């Protein structure tokens, strides 16, 4: 279908501010009388804090107050508290000091005395599961991980479980979550090839460029909160719950967010600190988190120890997948990467039978949160190299074995075998291979040039890509503007604007006459899905569609009322609603908006639909009488699971003398439905690949096991890839096949673009080394040197948090 706006590049309204530096991030705001606060962080991985003496601090000039854990609402365990007297990881905040400036606050921290009573700790999930093993928490060592409802339990496997695993293989004791379909054991017994491999994917930091700074002040009983959160209106009820306040008493400003990658998907515990300190000392409080602090408490991707048995028939079709995962969950509620991982395997390879078993284990490491493709991308890292291994053993082309398993028409996901709304991975694979010239490039495999060997690889990734049931809100004003109120946050993808263009498309409005209202709860923003899970494009294109359709219906009703006939006789175009059979009968949008205000009721937002969310009800009430209001809940049917798929191809040059790997080329193709914003799509596809290269090659948590100390608490230690570590040019493309469950065909794509790059690079490295070598990410230079020298690796095959 031809669109006027969708599929065209445009300049998002916030770009200029970002480029010129005038964009105001949280740290840039000031409030009259603003104080600063600093955090006393735990130096121990697990301890009880006693005998805290702040008396000397309160006497210091410039110190304004101290906030301790006992003064805050304690969330139900294992949810992370903002402050604690029993820190569960190095760097967990114990208390906060407010002062005139940060130097005084830091000096005050040095003057606080307290005792630390050490408690058992662990940075190793397998040790925690071993009989008598250390427990990261006093109330249990293991977690049934569910988002928002993680359950703490005590779970130790038997020594026999460990002994039965065999050398280097993951023990598989009793899981605390599982599902299956089909007869996996029979399928494995019948398989032409069975791979049984254990693997590790390392936990790693999000390292958002903007640390999670928060500023808060109180005015007339309302709390004004500036924060760096990915999601705007989705944050409101969460903030209200976290702070124990009514939503209408919170003003939340988050116009810009300097990166989150999932770690700022929703409001985070430390936001409560300046809010409560401000209330306590009666002054605005700015809490700037430093880079170190961001590494301590800025959340992280879970680590995985896994084992998979994959059964293949002679054609390469995956007949069975038997997946067992141990998720290193940090010490708090965490995020269910392992269930995403299992769903991902089922979607990526469409196995004829599958069993998933898993267990979450607490460790005294940073709290975990979703990171781009949580669980799904770990499976791209762990399983994609095994697909290559199977291809070699079955003498199949690496592209062909993927094609035979790739989700297409009739594809399903998960234990219920939920249909995917659309799946065009075969088309994406074909496109990526053509861009990359796979047929010719694969001949380069293993080619030696001096000390360098060429490797080529292909990698796949999957992620759910949409949701439904949220609200849309638009407003036509007598000034002739279409205000698109969006609760979409600003995590850097411009999806706030891209999805808003759907409303403009439906209303046939010139983009120049559209104003995007966002980033500040005072701008009357509807209840929208949060900006995570690759779902903004699908979900909020639907909400903007239904809101705009509601506005269209109201325009036609008003026209019929004023000009005669029935609404069905009217159409829209050129900022007018006109009679289809007599275009001289029309109302301009400004006139119709003025009429809506006169008419009141549903037309101007005096009345609102009953099925919209309370957040949207408030927004509509705030806008009532200011124009023609289009507002609706997305009640469009949703049959199946929207799904995004990506295929990527990479070429590397691996130096066999130094272990260095240069990624020289990368091409990716995305199945994301109708392309809504080509430039952003290309940017995200490339940026995702860069993040994938980081996970493939460099990034991982390192912990000193004896003391529980984190080894990488800075950019240069955590090693996100630099410009010089990624290809100068990358090719991107999209299959551009509309999704039938979205009125304009759009699906998300933000997450699997990372997984495809990650897997393609890992597979290209294996290819350069002559076959499958590592069941581990990242594949670091020292690992490559050791492997090429025929030396054992420094780490054991299942070790985590090590170099």
């Amino acid at each position: 279908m031809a669109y006027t706006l969708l599929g065209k590049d445009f300049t998002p309204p916030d770009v200029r501010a970002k480029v010129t530096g005038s964009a105001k991030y949280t740290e840039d705001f000031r409030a009259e009388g603003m104080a600063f606060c600093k955090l006393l962080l735990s130096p121990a991985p697990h301890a009880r804090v006693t005998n805290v003496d702040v008396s000397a601090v309160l006497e210091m000039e410039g110190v304004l107050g101290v906030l301790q854990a006992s003064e805050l609402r304690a969330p139900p365990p294992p949810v992370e508290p903002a402050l604690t007297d029993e820190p569960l990881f190095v760097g967990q905040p114990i208390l906060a000091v407010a002062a005139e400036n940060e130097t005084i606050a830091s000096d005050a921290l040095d003057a606080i005395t307290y005792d630390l009573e050490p408690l058992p700790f662990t940075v190793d999930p397998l040790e925690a599961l071993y009989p008598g093993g250390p427990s990261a928490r006093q109330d249990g060592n293991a977690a049934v991980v569910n988002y928002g409802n993680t359950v703490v339990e005590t779970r130790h496997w038997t020594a026999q479980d460990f002994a039965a695993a065999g050398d280097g293989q993951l023990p598989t004791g009793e899981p605390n979550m599982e599902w299956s379909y089909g007869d996996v054991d029979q399928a494995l017994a019948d398989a032409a090839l069975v791979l049984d491999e254990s693997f590790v994917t390392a936990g790693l930091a999000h390292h958002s460029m903007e640390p999670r700074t928060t500023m808060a002040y109180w005015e007339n009983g309302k709390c004004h909160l500036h924060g760096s959160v990915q999601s705007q209106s989705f944050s409101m009820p969460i903030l209200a719950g976290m702070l124990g306040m009514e939503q209408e008493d919170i003003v939340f400003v988050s116009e810009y967010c300097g990166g989150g990658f999932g770690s700022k998907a929703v409001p985070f515990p430390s936001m409560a600190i300046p809010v409560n300190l401000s209330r306590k000392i009666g002054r605005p409080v700015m809490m700037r988190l430093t880079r170190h602090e961001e590494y301590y408490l800025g959340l992280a991707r879970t680590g995985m120890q896994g084992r998979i048995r994959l059964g293949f028939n002679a054609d390469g079709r995956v007949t069975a997948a038997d997946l067992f995962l141990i998720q290193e969950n940090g010490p708090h509620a965490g995020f269910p990467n392992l269930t995403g991982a299992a769903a991902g395997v089922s979607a990526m390879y469409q196995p004829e039978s599958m069993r998933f078993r898993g267990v979450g284990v607490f460790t005294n490491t940073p709290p975990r949160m979703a990171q781009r493709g949580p669980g799904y991308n770990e499976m791209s890292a762990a399983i994609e190299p095994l697909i290559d291994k199977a291809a070699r053993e079955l003498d199949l082309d690496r592209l062909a074995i993927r094609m035979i398993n790739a989700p297409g028409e009739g594809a399903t996901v998960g234990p219920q075998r939920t249909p995917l709304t659309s799946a065009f991975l075969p088309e994406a694979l074909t496109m990526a291979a053509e861009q990359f010239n796979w047929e010719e490039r694969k001949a380069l495999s293993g080619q030696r040039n001096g000390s360098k060997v060429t490797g080529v690889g292909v990698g796949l990734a999957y992620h759910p890509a949409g949701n439904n049931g949220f609200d849309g809100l638009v407003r036509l004003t007598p000034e002739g503007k279409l205000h698109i109120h969006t609760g979409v946050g600003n995590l850097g993808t411009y999806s706030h604007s891209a999805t808003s263009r759907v409303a403009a498309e439906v209303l046939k409005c010139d983009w120049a006459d559209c104003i995007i209202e966002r980033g500040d709860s005072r701008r009357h923003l509807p209840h929208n899905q949060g900006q995570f899970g690759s779902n903004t494009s699908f979900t909020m294109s639907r909400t903007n569609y239904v809101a705009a359709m509601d506005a269209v219906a109201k325009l036609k009703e008003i026209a019929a009322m004023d000009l005669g006939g029935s609404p069905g006789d009217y159409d829209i175009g050129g900022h007018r609603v006109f009679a289809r059979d007599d275009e001289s009968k029309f109302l301009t949008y400004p006139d119709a908006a003025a009429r809506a205000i006169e008419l009141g009721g549903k037309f101007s937002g005096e009345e609102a639909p009953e099925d919209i969310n309370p957040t949207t009800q408030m927004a509509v009430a705030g806008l009532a009488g200011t124009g023609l209001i289009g507002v609706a809940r997305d009640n469009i049917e949703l049959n199946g699971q929207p799904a995004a798929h990506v295929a990527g191809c990479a070429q590397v040059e691996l130096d066999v003398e130094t272990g260095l790997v240069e990624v020289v080329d990368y091409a990716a193709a995305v199945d994301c439905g109708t392309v809504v914003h080509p430039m952003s799509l290309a940017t995200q596809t490339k940026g995702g690949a860069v993040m994938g290269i980081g996970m493939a090659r460099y990034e991982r948590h390192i912990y000193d096991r004896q003391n529980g100390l984190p080894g990488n608490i800075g950019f240069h230690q955590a090693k996100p890839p630099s410009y010089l570590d990624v290809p100068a040019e990358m090719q991107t493309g999209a299959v551009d096949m509309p999704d039938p469950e979205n009125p304009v065909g759009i699906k998300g794509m933000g997450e699997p673009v990372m997984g495809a790059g990650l897997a393609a690079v890992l597979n290209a490295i294996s290819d350069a080394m002559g076959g499958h070598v590592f069941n581990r990410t990242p594949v670091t230079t020292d690992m490559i040197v050791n492997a090429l020298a025929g030396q054992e690796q420094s780490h054991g095959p299942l070790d985590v948090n090590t170099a």
Partner: protein
Amino acid sequence: MSKDMMRAFELYQPDSVENAVELLGRFGADGWAMAGGNDTLDWFKDRVKYAGSVVDLSGVEGLSGIRETADGVEIGAMTTLTEIEASPLIQERYSVLADSARRVASPQIRNTGTIGGNVAQDTRCWYYRYGVDCYRAGGNSCYADTPQGQNREHCLWGADRCIAVTPSDTAPALVVLDARMAIVNADGEREVPAEEFFIGPEIDIERMTVLEPGDLLTAIRIPNDWAGAQFYFEKVADRNTWDFPLVNIASAMFVEGGAVSRIRMAAGAVECVPRRLSVVEEIVTGSAPDEETAALAGQAAVRGATPFNYNHFKIPLLENLVKRAIRDS
């Protein structure tokens, strides 16, 4: 615990070497000479180290610039790494130094980082930088040298309570060039060969160089002896920028009549000091710099290397880098 917030200190900004030396002499152990500030401010912000009196050298006249002298080249200690990598004189005569400077950190850091600061910087052992009470910090243990210590970046030689390594990329190049370090204090100036400038824990566990309180490194003088040699520098790090070496190698070699007539070679990040590979020099001298010689040199270079739990990869890596230095320079 790191706090990213400096304590207050007195800042002195002398404009002459004489004034700088007077200030450093006056403050002694409570004084701190600051060049580009890249190392200094990290320590201060983390509140791991502190000095009440900081002497900022950026305004000291005569400490910056590259000058040709009668017997070589003199580089002011405050010359930035960017200036060194871009200097036609250095590129022409001592390209190994330009190449090593080019691989330091990132362009932004090289713009502010100085050659003096690069050679005088402290070790990057993550435990020590974290602020633990290790031997080097005046304590009585080494956190890296434990059965589970994360010592991937640590030494292969010279462990003596501390197992940290030199992080400098320019240091091995300066050792290879037989550079002289000009040090001024209240007693006047002395020259120390680069090879002796760097010291290991067996000499002083709390210092990386011979510089003591009151000393000021003013210049690095490179003699003509190795000008125009066949040079080689290579650094292997995880990332291609903003990373410290896993191992680096520098060499200078003259070949006459198909055989190596003179050679100096040094490796970084394998010992607390740049490791002069004298045994390689001995083996290689008189031989053709071919694959066979290179292989022998590589084997010789790693004899006696004693790895820890996470760094034995450095042995084949160093062996290969030595091979490349002979074969490819």
